């Protein structure tokens, strides 16, 4: 049996792991049982491990990083989201955030599963070492923005509900959520800056112009501008809480449009990713 079979097998197992984790996180929100939270995190971790195996199989099979078409990127993006979530969880112990991040991961993976997954050789324009930096940082950046968005949703929902004591213990303190969402978005913003800069350097060596106002470029710039506004308002105007949370959700919507919408609706020389 070929590599592709094993890749698909592990991909599906990881997918199942993420579904189970998403459900468990919701049960956690409703029931507030600590055990459920532990189980949800365990399911996420197992799913992540399986996902990593699937990615490795593909890397061995194709001899390169899985960065060069919509399927591979959606798949890596999912991996980036879960990676960022787990990093945050193990550093800050914010279990409940998973309830808002894992569904994003699961949706993105669902999208990946609908796309053709043949291993194609790299077309000449993609044969560049900048591919690794450009797409590698994009995966991390998008993952961070997804987590920041999940944190913002958590913040908004949490500020509506009256909090009983049990829930309070489970959900992190609102102020912490707010701040963390800012820090994660700032990290994503730094990574996005590297994505754009490395893309410009690469474009100059492949297409002669470092910036050509291609729709994908323009949309990543728009995303970057939105997050610039967000950071300035937070830093200088003391924007916090609800308006900031909404801004971070809008920013993430831009990220998604840059990734999926531009390919679907706008003609672009970036048509492979």
């Amino acid at each position, binding site marked *: 049996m070929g590599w592709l079979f094993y890749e698909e097998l592990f991909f599906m197992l990881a997918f199942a792991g993420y579904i189970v984790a998403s459900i468990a996180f919701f049960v956690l929100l409703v029931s507030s049982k600590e055990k459920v939270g532990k189980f949800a995190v365990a399911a996420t971790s197992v799913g992540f491990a399986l996902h990593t195996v699937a990615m490795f199989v593909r890397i061995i099979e194709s001899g390169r990083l899985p960065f060069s078409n919509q399927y591979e990127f959606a798949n890596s993006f999912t991996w980036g989201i879960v990676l960022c979530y787990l990093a945050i969880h193990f550093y800050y112990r914010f279990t409940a955030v998973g309830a808002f991040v894992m569904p994003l991961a699961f949706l993105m993976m669902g999208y990946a599963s609908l796309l053709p997954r043949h291993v194609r050789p790299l077309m000449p324009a993609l044969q560049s070492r900048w591919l690794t930096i450009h797409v590698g940082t994009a995966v991390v950046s998008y993952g961070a923005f997804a987590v920041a968005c999940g944190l913002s949703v958590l913040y908004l929902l949490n500020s509506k509900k009256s909090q009983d004591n049990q829930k309070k213990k489970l959900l992190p303190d609102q102020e912490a959520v707010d701040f963390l969402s800012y820090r994660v978005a700032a990290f994503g913003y*730094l990574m996005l800056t590297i994505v754009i*800069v490395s893309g*410009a350097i690469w474009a*100059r*060596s492949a297409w002669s112009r470092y910036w050509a106002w291609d729709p994908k470029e323009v949309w990543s710039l728009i995303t970057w501008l939105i997050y610039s506004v967000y950071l*300035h308002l937070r830093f200088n105007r003391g924007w916090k809480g609800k308006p900031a949370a909404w801004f971070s959700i809008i920013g993430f919507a831009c990220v998604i449009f840059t990734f999926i919408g531009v390919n679907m609706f706008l003609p672009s020389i970036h048509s492979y990713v």
Partner: protein
Amino acid sequence: MNKFQRWLFSLHLGIVLFILISIYAVFATLLPQGLPVAYYLEQYHFGAVIIAFGLHDAYSSWIFRLFMMLLMINLTGCTIKLIPSQRKRYRPDFSPSPKPNAENLWNELLIFDQVKNKFSKKGFKWFQKDGETWGVKHRFGVFASTVTHIGIIIIVMGSFVGNFFAQEGFFNLIPDEQAVFHENNFSVQLDDFYLDFREDNSVKQYYCDLTVLRNGESVKETTIWVNRPMKFNGIQFYQASYGWASRLKITDNEGNEAMNRFLRNDESVFFEPAHLTIHLFGYFPDFAMGHNEMPLTMTEREVNPHYAVVLYHFGEFVDSFIMNPNQSFTYQGYEITFSDSVLYTGLIYRRDHGYYFVLLGCFLLMIGLIMAFYTYPKYILMRKNELYAVTRQNAWGFSMWVKNQLKS
């Protein structure tokens, strides 16, 4: 500063501009760019609005330039305005003040000098004045926003000035042909152009062997491919496209050669003696007939070469042929053949010194962001039975870190 200046250099205007630029760019990506004005007027209900706002050529329109110019003025003014206060905060004797609602992290178990020692080891430097003691780290971080903003200014100005002076063009060459750059007194000769195939006959890479000649002498020889341009005299040369060129030969009925030249795919030539226009519709190295009766090629390998040729007489269609290199056809006593197909290459060249400024700006921008998000100034302020973690950028994260440090 008067009221107008205050507004011109305010963050408020900066944010308004960011949002305006974003909205403008969203519209621009929804419209095809750079087509003739008539197209927009015919195709869109709001054609006149599109033209008035320059959205048909958005990134060189007056409105976009106005936005960018305002942004530059705004950002420059704002950055200069901030420098004095940053220099003040940079001074070693600048003493921080905690926010009114700041949490006092002091507890009974702590010993003043131990705390100082502990944080000294983490890179904090201690100062003392008027009964206050404070440790500071990453003081240079106060300049983060200035570095970032200067980066942006260099990027925008560099790209604008660079584009203004940029030199750009396209040429295509058949092997042994030259492109002459009179102004710079050199020419570029294509020695060879070839494709590298994979097993499935798809193209893996395109290669050009180039020689640069000056006064007839070779001064540089190199091979370029996609992602690996040649640089000469500040000009970059890029492998951009390719196609086939085929030799057209016409002989009269006495066997004299009446024409011998290369035609590129989709190129026509007028043959005066017979008033005949010969249009090479295409050369198909691996010929097949598509289902809509259109010829096509399966791969770029010369497996089954064929030519599709169309003839016109005084602009009227006469005939069309599909033939291979050994075949010929005759028209009014002239024998016409196609053979010796070669690949030609399309090269883009561009000279743009603005790029180096943009790179410098990007570098500053990234350094500035790292300073702003990670090496921002951090203070630990101690009075009798009081201890505060003070910072502007990341109050929560920093005080959490300080708390963790104090616990251990």
